[in-house]
């Protein structure tokens, strides 16, 4: 039963990851991509949790912990980078608004 539930959960999470990838490709702004990345990181952490439960591999828990703690760092750095943009007019900002 747990295995079935785990498979369903993994499938859901995979679908969620696919959603994030769609947004990543679509953009249209860099911030959308950063948001997609952030969501993807969270979904990955969720995948690891499911894996931990289903396979009983407790030693993976450090990974979840580090992802949750430090996954934030990449998102924040990217967001702050875009916010304060070291170029006068940010050449990385792309065409159009969301």
């Amino acid at each position, binding site marked *: *039963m*747990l295995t*079935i*539930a*785990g498979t*369903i*959960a*993994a*499938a*859901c*999470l995979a*679908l*969620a*990851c696919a*959603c*994030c990838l*769609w*947004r990543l490709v679509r953009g249209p*702004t860099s*911030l*959308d991509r*950063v*948001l*997609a990345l*952030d*969501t993807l990181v*969270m*979904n990955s*952490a*969720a995948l690891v*949790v*499911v894996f*931990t*439960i289903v396979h*009983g591999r*407790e030693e993976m*828990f450090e990974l*979840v*912990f580090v992802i*949750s*703690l430090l*996954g*934030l760092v990449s*998102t*924040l750095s990217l*967001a*702050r980078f*875009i*916010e*304060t*943009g070291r170029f006068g007019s*940010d050449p990385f*900002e792309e065409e159009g*608004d*969301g």
Partner: protein
Amino acid sequence: MAEVVVSVLLVLGAALALVGSWGVVVLPRFLSRIHGPSVVTTGGLGTLLLASLIWFWFDGGRLTGRELLVSFVLAVTAPITGHALSRAWLARHPKDPVDLGPGRDDS
């Protein structure tokens, strides 16, 4: 018994995460898209952690604080992420109206 609860929680958490990510896809404006992951996906992850807590408590016979710690960290970090992203957005697009009337979001 524990297995049933954990199974339900697993599916529920994953579904929540899916809903949050789906929000990233379908919501039309950036400021609304932020809410998907920062609220729903975080909730999904929390549910999964709860499942983990219960499972290793009943199945492994050990109650550890690590799930609670991760949940705490998530609860702290998720709003920060959302806040930082919206700040960045507003810094780049100062004209984007923040205070929206009802219904505008769905247009």
